[in-house]
């Protein structure tokens, strides 16, 4: 990549251009390591900016690069820290957040470009924890060197139990919420595609156009009126599920936020209706409220009794003909397994589909031996693992068929 030519102001312009190009290439690598999706076009535009007079004003260059390289809010929040660390040699703040204008830096010009005789590719101005040499191999993952450098893609197959780093947990939560959003969008789009038949309603068209002497001036088209898909989630919040509860709560928060029609219940030794608590705008607050409700561990799990409560008091209100009930549980029933079987059968008669998600299903050597799960399985339409983002993603095509 080379800088586009501007009017020469230095005798050794080429040398400066080379230096700028090398430093810019290193900066792009740093951004890629930090999870930015930077392509060739962005690199060329950055070179254009450097040669258009932006390079001598760090604040202006920071703002310009920020707009050019960011593609989402997480990039936007990280960018200033990365830029300052690379170009101005400042230490990276964790989670740099800027509101409003860029803080003015005292640097009159970019380090390493102040002096024409600066060493080529010098890494003096680069913070210790950033790659500075130009021979860094492409495509290294930046994990461990920078905060938030991992991408959601890396988390897709990680079992939720194994997420210990708070940043990763936060990222998984974000990804779960995004997944709920994406699911809803695609599902409603399929609804629309199904409805968008270009079918004329001849009877109504003729009737409407009687006043025009029967000439079909205004056309009436048929539209199928579909009921929106309703998702009802029953989440097991017992002790044995504790490693998964918070992430599923986040997923459900996303689902309730995005689906036009969704309801959520928690159960352990009893059933709690939590849709209202989940409708908190702020996910963190919603989770706080729910974690209090979810504290029922220790008394075992009474899935059968919880389902009985659901069938008796809630089912008629929340279930209609296009409903899918999603039960998230490991199936360890400490109550009466026969009751669970009966209630599952009753529930199955009411709704279109029952999906049972069992996080343990993906564990090596796991077989559904628990009494509870054995009694429930005959009445389940889809029995699937749900221990990673990938397994949640795999559900969507199934829901789309409903």
């Amino acid at each position, binding site marked *: 990549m080379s800088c586009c030519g501007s009017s020469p102001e230095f005798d050794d312009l080429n040398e400066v251009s080379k230096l700028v190009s090398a430093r810019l290439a290193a900066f792009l690598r740093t951004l890629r390591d930090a999870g930015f999706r930077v392509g060739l076009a962005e690199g060329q*535009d950055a070179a254009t900016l450097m040669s258009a007079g932006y390079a001598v004003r760090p604040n202006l260059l920071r*703002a310009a690069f920020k707009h050019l390289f960011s*593609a989402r809010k997480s990039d936007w929040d990280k960018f200033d820290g990365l830029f300052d660390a690379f170009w101005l040699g400042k230490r990276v703040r964790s989670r740099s957040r800027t509101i409003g204008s860029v803080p003015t830096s005292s640097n009159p010009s970019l380090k390493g470009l102040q002096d024409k005789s600066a060493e080529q590719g010098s890494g003096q101005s680069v913070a210790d924890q950033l790659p500075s040499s130009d021979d860094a191999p492409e495509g290294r993952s930046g994990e461990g060197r920078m905060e938030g450098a991992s991408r959601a893609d890396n988390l897709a197959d990680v079992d939720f139990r194994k997420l210990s780093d708070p940043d990763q947990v936060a990222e998984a939560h974000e990804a779960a919420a*995004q997944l709920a959003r994406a699911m809803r969008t695609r599902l409603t789009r399929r609804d629309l595609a199904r409805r968008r038949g270009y079918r004329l309603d001849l009877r109504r068209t003729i009737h409407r156009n009687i006043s025009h002497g029967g*000439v079909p*001036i205004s056309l009436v088209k048929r539209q199928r009126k579909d009921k929106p898909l309703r998702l009802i989630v029953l989440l097991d919040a017992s002790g044995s599920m504790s490693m998964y509860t918070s992430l599923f709560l986040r997923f459900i928060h996303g689902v309730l936020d995005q689906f036009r029609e969704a309801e959520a219940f928690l159960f352990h030794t009893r059933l709690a209706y939590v849709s209202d608590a989940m409708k*908190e705008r702020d996910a963190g607050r919603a989770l706080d409220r729910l974690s209090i409700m979810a504290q029922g561990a220790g008394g075992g799990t009474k899935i059968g009794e919880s389902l009985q409560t659901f069938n008796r008091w809630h089912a008629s209100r929340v279930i209609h003909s296009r409903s899918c009930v999603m039960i998230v549980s490991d199936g360890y029933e400490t109550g009466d397994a026969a009751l669970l079987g009966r209630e599952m059968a009753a529930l199955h008669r009411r709704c279109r589909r029952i999906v049972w998600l069992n996080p343990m299903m993906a564990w090596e050597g796991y077989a559904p031996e628990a009494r509870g799960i054995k009694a429930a399985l005959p009445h389940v339409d889809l029995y699937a693992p749900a221990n990673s983002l990938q397994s949640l993603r795999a559900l969507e095509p199934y829901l789309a068929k409903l």
Partner: protein
Amino acid sequence: MKGRDEIAQALAASGYIADAELATAISLMRLLRRPLLLEGEAGVGKTEVAKALAKVHATELIRLQCYEGLDQSSALYEWNYQRQLLAIQAHRGSDSIEDQVFSEKYLLERPLLAAIRRARAPVLLIDEIDRADDEFEAFLLELLSDFQVSIPELGTIPAMTIPQVVLTSNGTRELSDALRRRCLYHYVDYPDVDRETRIILARVAGAGPSLSLQIARMVEGVRKEELRKVPGVAETLDWAAALVGLDVSNLHDASEIVHETLICLLKTHEDRARVTPEVTQRLLGKVA
């Protein structure tokens, strides 16, 4: 390169108080020929940016409001079916009518087609792109890179001018990477006290500097409360206008009116219940 300071001044003159970063983004739009994607919470003034931009360039603003199920015919062009039918009825028996009914005379321009057929480059605002679906986004991406439209009956229509494109998104759907990378990205946050004060001064006639500052501080306090709907800039301006209309010049002297008029900021029953008179007093206590 038009400097960001000049752009900030021009925006201010048109009634939009921009921060330095946004002014930079606008100066880059022309230089790099990229659309600008504005993301942020509802009510932070994303749409206003496009309106101000059109004022600054003294050009037309063409707006395309996106919604679920938006398709090409509502966004790009449509044939005027009724008119075509009437023409066919009127010229029954004429052979040339078939060619005529698919001429420009019978074409209905929708925002995207209008935006590339103006003699003076307009500002094209694609509002709430996240509400449209993936296919529409893909089609839009194609249009934003080629700036030409193919109409089967008419052929390819190239752009007469290239519009300045502003897209807004509230993040209800994750946009594709391709679209994000095509655009310059700017996250519009709630303004800080200083900028909100200047916004009130610029937009609400009769609000003096001290009242504007008090209102901005009060709103900042309200935003920190645990609300379901955080008030945006539009709500702040409504509230400021209400206070000015009720002859309030100092919030401390009119705490009752302040509490009653908070309905301008609080838009749900729960939020209204949450901000009790005691909370209002506490917030007022923090306003110097």
